[in-house]
């Protein structure tokens, strides 16, 4: 066996909610990059396919104390308890159409292997997975502009954000050609991170000390969504607003979000 890389990669994202303006560039970039189909009538959001959704949350207070925060939500690429890759969606798939990539930490899948039972959608606490209710219909000659690097999906299968894994594949291709073992940080970036005009989305290897995300995830403002489910997501959020932090999980009135982390540690 050839010698392995000295550390496993855990690609993750840090989204600074203080910087996010809710412009939706990340969503547009994601649609274009990953051949995500859309329909003429997208009013029913339950039927929409979107790998990345920017949610709008408010603190619920009347004017003039109303505050708004935009929350971009890609797939959280859950590690599961103990980082063993026991992601909620992976463990329920009866077709082995989705699995956890131990090399990159990305929850990967084979669309053609999926038979559309949608267990994974039920299991995902973040609603990251979407179902193809229809075959994609591309308006006019848009078919010509589809990316050849991402296979388009057909009716009856589930899809989700892949952290633009094809970009990782391409970066690896180049690294092999140049006889390199490691990728540069800027070689593999997701489309949403590149498109964000305010630089709210940072992407990189959470295990690599030289990557920006390594430092950002330790920021005192950092939190993850629904941490108490032990899904161990690889998408971190930064916020300086306590109400946004509270919205990240179902906290009781007397609970302090900051203390939950201790609970996590003691729990396992």
């Amino acid at each position, binding site marked *: 066996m050839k010698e392995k890389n000295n550390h496993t990669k855990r690609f993750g994202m840090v989204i600074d909610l203080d910087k996010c303006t809710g412009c939706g560039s990340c969503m547009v970039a994601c649609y274009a990059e990953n051949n995500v189909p859309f329909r003429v009538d997208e009013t029913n959001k339950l039927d929409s396919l979107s790998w990345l959704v920017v949610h709008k949350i408010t603190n619920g207070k009347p004017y003039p104390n109303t505050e708004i925060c935009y929350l971009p939500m890609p797939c959280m690429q859950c590690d599961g308890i103990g980082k063993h890759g026991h992601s909620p969606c992976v463990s329920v798939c009866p077709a082995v159409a989705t699995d956890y990539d131990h090399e990159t930490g990305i929850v990967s899948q084979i669309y053609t292997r999926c038979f559309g039972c949608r267990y994974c959608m039920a299991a995902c606490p973040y609603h990251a997975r979407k179902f193809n209710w229809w075959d994609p219909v591309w308006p006019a000659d848009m078919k010509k502009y589809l990316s050849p690097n991402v296979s388009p999906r057909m009716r009856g299968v589930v899809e989700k954000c892949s952290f633009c894994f094809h970009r990782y*594949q*391409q970066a690896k*291709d180049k690294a092999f050609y140049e006889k390199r073992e490691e990728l540069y940080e800027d070689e593999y970036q997701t489309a949403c991170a590149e498109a964000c005009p305010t630089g709210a989305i940072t992407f990189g290897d959470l295990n690599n000390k030289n990557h920006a995300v390594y430092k950002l995830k330790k920021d005192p403002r950092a939190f993850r969504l629904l941490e108490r489910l032990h899904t161990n997501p690889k998408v971190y959020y930064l916020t300086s607003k306590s109400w946004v932090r509270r919205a990240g999980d179902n906290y009781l009135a007397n609970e302090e979000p900051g203390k939950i982390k201790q609970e996590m540690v003691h729990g396992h």
Partner: protein
Amino acid sequence: MSQTDQHQPVSTKAMPGANETPAANSTGWIIFLFFMIGFVGSLLAGWILFPELLYSKKNQPIDFNHAIHLDQVDDGCESCHFFREDGTFAGMPGLDSCIDCHEEAQTDNPEEIKFVEEYVTQGIEVPWLNYSKQPDCVFFPHSAHVIGADMSCETCHGDIGNSEHTRVYEQNKLTGYSRDIWGHNIARLGKHKQGEPAPMKMNDCAKCHKKETGHKGACFQCHK
């Protein structure tokens, strides 16, 4: 009572059979013979007739001689089937690779004359048939295998570099994919012959990955 009733006919029937052993033996053989005729017939139909029906046959637009070209070039297979600078693999060469030598026919070989007249002078790319074309959802990095793992082209594509004629392209009428993907052994038993292209189904990839890297790899390692 009922038990004896049941036993009665069995014993009477069994008795003559036990007495007339030669007759019973010959019926047994006849049954066996017919079974074997049917069995072997089905196997032959499955292994010979079925592939004939399943695959349609096409010839390449030009009967390309790999052996002659391999003698002329310096860099082996990579002279024409090269890597681009971003690490992607160019695959089938375009006309621009051929045009340096073949702007005019160099021999009186009818295939070369046809190539020059029908494609080079008219500037039309040759619609080569790709024996190893994979489905859309597959990502196959040549660089990881050829540069990273130091594999030779022959390991998967067979000894195509020394072939003097292009093979017949067999296309699966149901799936549209080349027969090379399934492999030429229709039963997919045993190892493929040395020098012949290796089967290229997902199981074949997984088998080699398991052997060489210790695990089959995650979905996205080969899928996109």
